[in-house]
């Protein structure tokens, strides 16, 4: 069976990229379509209108990968916002659980656990997006301050939450490994 092409069929995104200028919105649409992201140009609702009258609707879950691509291609955008719960921002709270020799750091639905003594990542868990098992394999046995950042290698909001957990883990490790 062949893998089907991306971007076919209907689209319901859940997120908007907002711009100052119409030209940047059109450039973003072009860049994202070339990378096979399902997107469409839309008029932002009045309460979300910041700069121009054009926005790009995206699948909100793909926000981290899209932000990285737009930055790589020098596309200037103002911000990315969810279409529902428009005043909501990305969750910033993290919680740390002490398992004696290990610390588990949890950010939203994602967890990263490292060994206090060595700083090695011993497990990641939670989430449900397809890049998470990839990162599970990529991060294990690496030190928290040497492992790649999920925000740099992932594409989804699950990856972004794992990155939040890694950021806190690095701080804890730098401050003495939580020991």
């Amino acid at each position, binding site marked *: 069976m062949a893998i089907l*092409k991306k971007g076919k069929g209907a689209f319901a995104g859940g997120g908007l990229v907002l711009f100052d200028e119409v030209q940047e919105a059109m450039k973003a649409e072009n860049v994202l379509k070339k990378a096979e992201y399902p997107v469409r140009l839309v008029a932002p609702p009045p309460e979300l209108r910041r700069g121009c009258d054009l926005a790009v609707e995206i699948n909100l879950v793909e926000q981290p990968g899209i932000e990285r691509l737009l930055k790589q291609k020098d596309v200037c955008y103002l911000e990315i916002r969810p279409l529902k719960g428009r005043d909501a921002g990305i969750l910033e709270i993290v919680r740390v659980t002490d398992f004696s020799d290990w610390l588990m750091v949890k950010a939203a639905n994602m967890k990263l656990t490292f060994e206090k003594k060595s700083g090695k990542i011993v*497990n990641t868990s939670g989430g*449900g997006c397809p890049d998470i098992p990839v990162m599970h394999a990529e991060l294990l046995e690496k030190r928290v301050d040497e492992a790649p950042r999920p925000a740099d290698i992932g594409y989804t909001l699950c990856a972004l939450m794992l990155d939040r957990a890694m950021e806190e883990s690095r701080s804890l490790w730098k401050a003495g490994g939580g020991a």
Partner: protein
Amino acid sequence: MMLIAGTVPIEGMPLTFGTVSAEGGYLLVGGQRVPCTQGTGAMVGAALATTGYLKLEAPQALLAGDTGQGQGSRAIYEYLIENVAELAPEVLALHYWLPDMAQTRLLCAAIEKCARRPVLIADAASMYSAKAAGLATDFDIFTPDSAETAFLADPDATHPAYVRFMLFNNTEKMPELIKAAYEHKNTAKLLLVKGAVDYIVKDGKIIATVNEPDVPMMEPIGGTGDTITGMVSAFVGAGLEPHEAAIIAARANRMAGKFAEVTPATRAGCVIDQLPAVFAKYLCEWSGVCATGGVE
């Protein structure tokens, strides 16, 4: 037939459909070797361990490689939308994929056309897309953790990263979240909330909790929630009612963690390896499944 659909972390692996078997610590599906690790692999592995113990037909799996950019996910959506009526699974369990509200709507519409509607189970991002698309009530079973339950309780969030409040493992507040999820019609008919205390909820009412054995070191282990969903799917496929399947799966997962003497560094495969021993010791007592070959 029980069908599990989801992505696996193998770049370029094409859409693959077939009966699941195991070989040397890997799963075999349609000639592809899939690691039994966090995600769909762990779910399929636990389902296979369960059907294997019960001497039932092995699960069917629809898998595709996806490293986060969505190609494999879209292949799975489109194949299911086109073929689910013909495949006619009795149980359809959806797992890791890139959440896509439009594709989820098309899939639910296709499922409605099945001559016999499958028992519909979702975990991980397939649960996110079902909720975000407003189709949670089309599903029979969701298996969220505490953070994902907060997501289901939030009427606006389309992903757990955008939840307005997060209680993590605050078990005292969990009944409130469960109530809110049902009030907003953002959950399946049956909910198995995985956490320090596992809640089994039917149509909004908490009908059971499971908190023994207490193995807190299972929480950091990637894939130990996936194993519960795999077992739930297999037990439903074996003929148990969804709430019975959920209670037994929650108990068995905890006991497998205890048998494996897990630490936060344990891998999910070690927990799955213990399932046959757990079933041999406890399944008759818990379920009435006292001989292999099906539910008595």
